[in-house]
């Protein structure tokens, strides 16, 4: 048995409060980590990340790349014998990382999410072309993927003008911040 020192265990409690997930349930069977298609891009395997949460290793967990690389595909949790909603843990850790202003493990991915939400806030729907342009602008990267972008434009996979919703007031209600 691992004995938690003072201060340890707070992270597990915080995340449990946000998600309702009981971290004692994890068997560390690694089924999740074996199922996850994106472990190549992660610094901690999904079950190791849960371990960090259990042990209260807040800095490592919140600054990890894992929480950003996880796309929430639910592959891990659909196989998890203890039905632990791992992507929900990732959501909560990301939000906590943002709230605490820690160093972001994968700034490009956060940048992408922010650009997506900006267009949703503005139009009520995503506008892919704008997301891509602004994302690239921020990243100072115009050369990679030009071919893909042009192909998508040519095949009209990227609409030039955004599709917008009429009820702008509703957006104000949703995006209070």
């Amino acid at each position, binding site marked *: 048995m691992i004995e938690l020192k003072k201060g340890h265990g707070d992270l597990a409690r915080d995340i449990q409060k946000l998600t309702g997930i009981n971290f004692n349930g994890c068997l560390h069977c690694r089924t999740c980590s074996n199922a996850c298609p994106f472990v190549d891009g992660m610094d901690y395997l999904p079950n190791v990340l849960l371990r960090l949460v259990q042990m209260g290793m807040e800095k490592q967990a919140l600054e990890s790349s894992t929480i950003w690389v996880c796309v929430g595909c639910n*592959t891990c949790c659909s196989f998890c014998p203890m039905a632990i909603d791992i992507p929900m843990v990732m959501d909560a850790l990301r939000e906590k990382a943002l709230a605490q202003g820690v160093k972001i493990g994968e700034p490009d*991915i956060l940048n992408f999410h922010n650009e997506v939400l900006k267009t949703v806030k503005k139009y009520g729907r995503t506008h892919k072309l704008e997301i891509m342009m602004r994302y690239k602008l921020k990243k100072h990267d115009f050369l990679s993927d030009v071919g893909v972008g042009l192909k998508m434009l040519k095949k*009209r996979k990227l609409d030039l003008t955004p*599709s917008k919703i009429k009820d702008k007031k509703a957006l104000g209600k949703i995006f209070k911040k």
Partner: protein
Amino acid sequence: MAKTTYSFFPGCSLKASGHENTLSLLKFCEMVDIELQELDDWNCCGSSSAHSVDHEVARDLPWRNISLVPEGQPLLIACPSCMIRFKQSHLKLKNDLDLQKKYEKDWGRPFDPDLEIIHFFELFKRIRLRDYIEEPTKQLKGIKVAPYYGCMLSMPPDLRHEPSYYGLMEDALSRLGAQIVSYGYETQCCGTYLSVAKPELSQKVVTQIISRARDAGAECMVTACAMCHLNLEIRCSMKKPIPTFHFSEMLSMALGAEKQKKWFPKHIVNPIPLLKERKLFKSRSNGLGELKSIFTRKDVKK
């Protein structure tokens, strides 16, 4: 057969980059007497980004959409990930009276706990394809297809009692005469937005999925998700990638939809040479003459 009306949520992927999917989906539904009424003034469900950074926005975006559904109509959702967002949001409301109050106050409508939120696949339980296609069928004869579900069948724990549709595409496509290739990567996620933010990761998984399918003998991929469709097309690094079809494209083609030309050119990997090779490009010659009456009926709007 009497028409059934569904509210229809296309979602941003389908609306913006999945024109061919939208067209074929609408066509398919029209052919099987299902009327789709696009949800008036729908908004983005928040997709992966909202729940990544702001759980309140992620909750409120689907709420507004749910509040727009006309009473008594089931809500059909074309995009598998939007569907999970909607279902989770709805379930959360169902289990929480305080949230229900908030929802009713915010959106000015009573909460409907019985609202049916269904995926396109669910339609196959509600219609019988054989009512619309003669059996035995040869419509897709000879083409070797690799059905690809991506992450759409993986449900989070709170939705684990949802029906599983594993095998549905295999079943429908093989009934139509296609040869199903099994390759072991049917439910591997395509990487969704990592395709933009971490293209190398996405490329690795996509190329693995498609090359395994091709090595197992597949001539094309069939997916039911617009996002997967796009990723399979743009992130495959094989020299000669095989084309990807949307499931509804296959179905409407099998039902003899005439205007395929309208959507096939929108594919990034051109599927026409394969279809010509398999003599599937002109569906009229497949002996579907008598079925034509179904699609050309006056009461079916184009």
